[in-house]
């Protein structure tokens, strides 16, 4: 329970996100592995591209845009500050319309690799002021 509270504190305290330790950059192989997992498992909802049939954003990106109202980049690859623990909490517990994901779908090691990739990606990409 204490761990959950810590994770949620990181989730809700938007201003404090930068203070939460980011995932390790990881070695290039881990980042590459994380990119592959992200593209396979996460990108259909959370990538930067447009949604279907005229929607400006994919559903996960649109949900985060609505939730954070420009305070945090809604595209996960631009966001930064996503710790392994925070990412694992969302993946395993879901959020809003996002369901939970099982270990058979994405392992803890894959979540860590995705966190490493997202950290690397967010540092490589310029962050728009708002979206």
């Amino acid at each position, binding site marked *: 329970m204490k761990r959950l509270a810590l994770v949620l504190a990181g989730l809700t305290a938007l201003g404090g996100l930068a203070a939460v330790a980011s995932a390790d950059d990881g070695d290039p192989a881990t980042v590459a592995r994380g990119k592959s997992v992200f593209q*396979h498992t996460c990108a259909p909802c959370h990538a930067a591209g447009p949604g279907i049939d005229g929607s400006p954003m994919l559903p996960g990106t649109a949900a985060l845009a609505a939730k954070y109202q420009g305070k945090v980049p809604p595209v996960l690859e631009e966001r930064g500050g996503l710790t392994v623990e925070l990412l694992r909490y969302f993946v395993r517990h*879901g959020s809003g319309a996002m369901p939970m994901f099982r*270990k058979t779908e994405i392992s803890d090691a894959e979540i860590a690799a995705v966190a490493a990739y997202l950290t690397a990606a967010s540092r490589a990409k310029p962050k728009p002021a708002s979206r």
Partner: protein
Amino acid sequence: MRTLPPGVGAGDFDAAVGSFETAVGKEWVFSSEEDLTPYRDSFSTVWGTPDERLAAAAVAPVTVEQVQAVVRIANRYRIPLFPISTGKNFGYGGPSPNLTGSVVVDLKRMNRVLEVDEERNFALVEAGVSYFDLYRHIQERGLKVWVDCPDPGWGSPVGNSLERGIGYTLPFYRDHFGASCGMEVVLASGELMRTGMGALPNARTWQDYRYGFGPDPAGLFAQGNFGIVTKMGFRLMPRPEHYRTGMITVPKRRDFIPLVKTVNYLSDSFLIGEAVYGSPLSVLMSDVSFRETVTRPGGPADAEMDRIAADNNLHSWQVELQFYGPEKTCVANWEYAKERLTAEIPGARAYDGESLAVPLTPRQLQNVDSPYPTHIRRHGAHGVPSLGIWKIVSANGHAGFFPVIPRTGEAVFEAQRVLGDALREFDLRPFFTAITTPLHWHTFAFQMVFAPPISREDSAHNAMVHRAMHRIVEVAAEHGWGDYRAATVYQDAVANTYAYNDHALRRFHETLKDAADPNGILAPGRGGIWPRRFRSAQ
């Protein structure tokens, strides 16, 4: 508190879990609360209540032999199992079992695309292969075949077809179970069986001719609990050369009747893909007076609706048509459709849509250049899996009731009125109004949609939705409309409505169940079929 299978002591359960670990590896057996959380149904209307169906454990085999071992262990300890493929059956129970205390057999790791043949147009896949997986396999190899997809691409061809899911291309392929061809099944005994031509050891036509010889039991495994399907074949649609669209609008309310009749002809003659119906009057729904009119108890008079349409210079109905094939036949079939419909229905108008070579460009796939507002799901219409449809999921998800109704305008009018009136007592947005149109997803039947949102934070709202679900199942059945697919918590209620001759169908299923699965270990309760050991408790 620890969840155990009913009638199984902690000692036996622990012994079974230990045996599962030996069979599949310790890391692929899950029994902690943390690991089992993602096996809950995130769309549950009974989330957090005593009615929620919870797993006692999960086991994830990666081979057919491991599935057989799991089944044999379950027989030894009388452990109820609940197989899932990718576990994304949201709105219908997700990965959660019918019976609390079941052990989920998670087949997600069985994710091999075994064969795709673009000359004979079929695929053979394992149970954990997703639509994304199969699509990527096809694209990476440049194969000229389409797989008809349901809305979210994270589901599996095996799981979706066993749920009798539907898609958006040509009529034959939209019926995902109907387009299946041959399956491999682990029976309750642990024995392996293949259906159709797969039962003939040297046959090379397993995915070409589904029946083989003698009775075909394949249907028992759809929405049933007679085995665990480990492999399944599917007919694939040859990638068409061309795609074109067009829209017909008709002015008066009763024009819907001849419109449906002729579109049925086009569909049943295999000239069109999914016909997407709508009402141009829907733009008026923000007007309070119009909203009151179309939701009035008993429904508005036809003349009143016609007057509103005329006053607003709008037509009453529209249908978007989709054509696949060589460009010449697409053009000819659209010309035929619009000539016939404009001749048959006074005042009908035809609008040319898009005429596109296949495969589409990324922009064409985005569906942003239609000359008129379109409700076609372009990705689905082109066999491209996505998660874009998740944009319609509000709150934490939704329940779902999809009654099968006749493909006639009269039946649609009756369903609008009856189902709209039945739901009036519930504090929900109107799902059935005088301008609600049917979905032509099933090949030869319409369905309507009741999908109220649920919230994991609002148990009172969920309880209201739960009551509404039971109410609409009853009212629909009174009028001869039955759900085609139901969430685990509603499967008993829905199965009870299929009651002809004192539930002869259910009693037949129970007879088969008790013979084929004497220990009642396979998905007790799925499809409303309970094995003897659990029957008296239901």
